[in-house]
């Protein structure tokens, strides 16, 4: 028998119902995608949809035979990792300065840039990169994806830096640290959890970003997400292969999303001050 009061119990029930609903909204399309990738082509678009089916790896075989999947995966990895690293290198000091000086408007500018539709930047970038003959290079993708990763890093890290007691920074200054050293020796080691979270989020957003890769890459530098567009034809679409590609593309972010849970709980600043 539960000790909870009736109002607590109804709240718990409401909680559970909402969680199940939210879970359905998130999980049904994902499960649909995974299930479709193991179906025959005609079953993918069958109506009513087939729930019970004989799983097949045909779509995965077709994917590996018809597209240089590993090459695209390599491209995605290069672009994503480099743009994440660039986002961290530029974003972490920026977040530290925004937190230290309590001047957040530059960070807001980066957020606005992140929130603006990508198409806004696409044409100027295309013109710029064409003029310097960088269309189709990894760098054009890495630099444009940094516009996605850097604001994420900044906005994830600002509260982590804010959380460090100011007196710890001041103690470091009194101990002989320049602001750069305060950042490197004191602040950065104290936000490792934030760095991990921001890196993983930046990775996921860059990995999944479609538009810039579609326009700025070529067949050699195309990323997985842009390459998956190949399965959508004007006359017919290979839904099974597309679902297989989508499933494989979704795997790294999904794995990282599971890992991020472990990092979210940050107790590193415990003991810095009284208490």
């Amino acid at each position, binding site marked *: 028998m539960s000790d909870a009061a009736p109002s607590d119990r109804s709240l718990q029930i409401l909680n559970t119902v909402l969680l199940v609903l939210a879970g359905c909204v998130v999980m049904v399309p994902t499960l649909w995608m995974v299930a479709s990738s193991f179906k025959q082509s005609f079953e993918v678009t069958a109506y009513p949809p087939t729930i019970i089916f004989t799983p097949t790896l045909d779509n995965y075989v077709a994917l590996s035979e018809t597209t240089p999947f590993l090459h695209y995966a390599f491209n995605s990895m290069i672009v994503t990792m480099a743009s994440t690293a660039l986002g961290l290198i530029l974003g972490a000091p920026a977040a530290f300065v925004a937190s230290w000086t309590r001047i957040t408007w530059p960070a807001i500018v980066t957020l606005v840039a992140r929130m603006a539709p990508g198409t806004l930047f696409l044409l100027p970038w295309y013109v710029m990169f064409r003029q310097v003959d960088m269309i189709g290079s990894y760098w054009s993708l890495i630099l444009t994806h940094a516009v996605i990763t850097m604001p994420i890093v900044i906005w994830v890290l600002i509260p982590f830096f804010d959380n460090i007691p100011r007196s710890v920074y*001041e*103690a470091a200054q009194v101990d002989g640290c320049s602001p750069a050293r305060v950042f490197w020796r004191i602040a950065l080691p104290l936000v490792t959890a934030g760095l991990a979270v921001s890196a993983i989020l930046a990775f996921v957003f860059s990995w999944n970003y479609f538009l810039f890769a579609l326009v700025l890459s070529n067949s050699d530098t195309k990323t997985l997400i842009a390459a998956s567009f190949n399965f959508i034809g004007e006359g017919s679409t290979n839904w099974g292969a597309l679902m297989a590609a989508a499933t494989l593309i979704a795997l790294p972010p999904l794995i990282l999303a599971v890992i991020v849970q472990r990092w979210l709980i940050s107790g*590193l600043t415990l003991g*810095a001050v*009284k*208490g």
Partner: protein
Amino acid sequence: MASISMRSLVKTYGDFTVIPGLDLEIADHEFVVLVGPSGCGKSTLLRVLAGLERINGGDLYIGDDRVNDVPAARRDIAMVFQDYALYPHMTVRQNMAFALEMRGMDKAEIETRVKRAAGLLHIEDFLDRRPKALSGGQRQRVAMGRAIVRDPRVFLFDEPLSNLDAKLRAQVRAEIKALSQQLRTTMVFVTHDQVEAMTMADRIVIMKSGIIQQVGSPEDVYERPANLFVAGFIGSPAMNVLPVTVAGDRLVLSNARSVQIASLGSKRPAALIEGATVDLGIRPEHFEVAPDDPNAIAVTVDLVEPLGSDTLIHFKLAEINAIARVSPDLRPKPGDSLSLSPVPGKIHLFERETGEVIR
């Protein structure tokens, strides 16, 4: 080790002036306590000394160096923060060694200094622990160790005892005092606790609204307060302040002229003219029970607070609340009558308008 000189020092935040122009000289090896109520500017002054705040006017010297524009990192001062501000990702040893590493000191020398300071503060057993594994008192010692190990020109303490419980506070207070005598380094200590100020300082600086009210030895500020603010701030319970009128060589309560509260005796200040109204200050401990004195004031006891070492008697003098500290042997009850008279030579007179002492 160095002296400190503040000359017409001004600190503002936008339009708000925290320190409007302060002059203070602190001698080499001196232990000075800045004391005052919250918002009086004492912590701001300490942060200015540390280089954590820029000054907006005047000059600041540490030793012979004008340090107005010298950053904290290059002032060679050590500071113990109110919340200790230990580096949570470092062990105690690393916390203490950090400042020395920043100065590029030899590793063997760092180890020697850390061990020496740890021995001095009895924290040798915690050297490999992180701050979160320490109690409040232990963290406080580590914070002091981090300062000591540097052998700085000046030590700054920003209310370092305020997070400790009463027993530990008294213990650490004594330890800091002993340490100051051992290290012979210039120390500036900020507190709002007048007991800390009185027990530790060579000199006390009492501040209000960014202005120094009095600078003097603990005895000075207690025995000879410069104004009503100092008189009320130093001493616990606070000094009793009663409006009195000068009538011949007597002081009578302004609102009850039949009550003579004290006699001026032969040392009547020249500034006191007949009929003038002034504030009379009497510390609770400067009342004595005088049943046989015909001039004693008869009071009715309102409240009795036995403290063990002595007893506080609350009473009213013509509707003004007052307190007397008497021997613990005396155990009156509320409603009892008591004859009290001020200890001769222990009364203080202040101007009504300015609050300045009349001497």
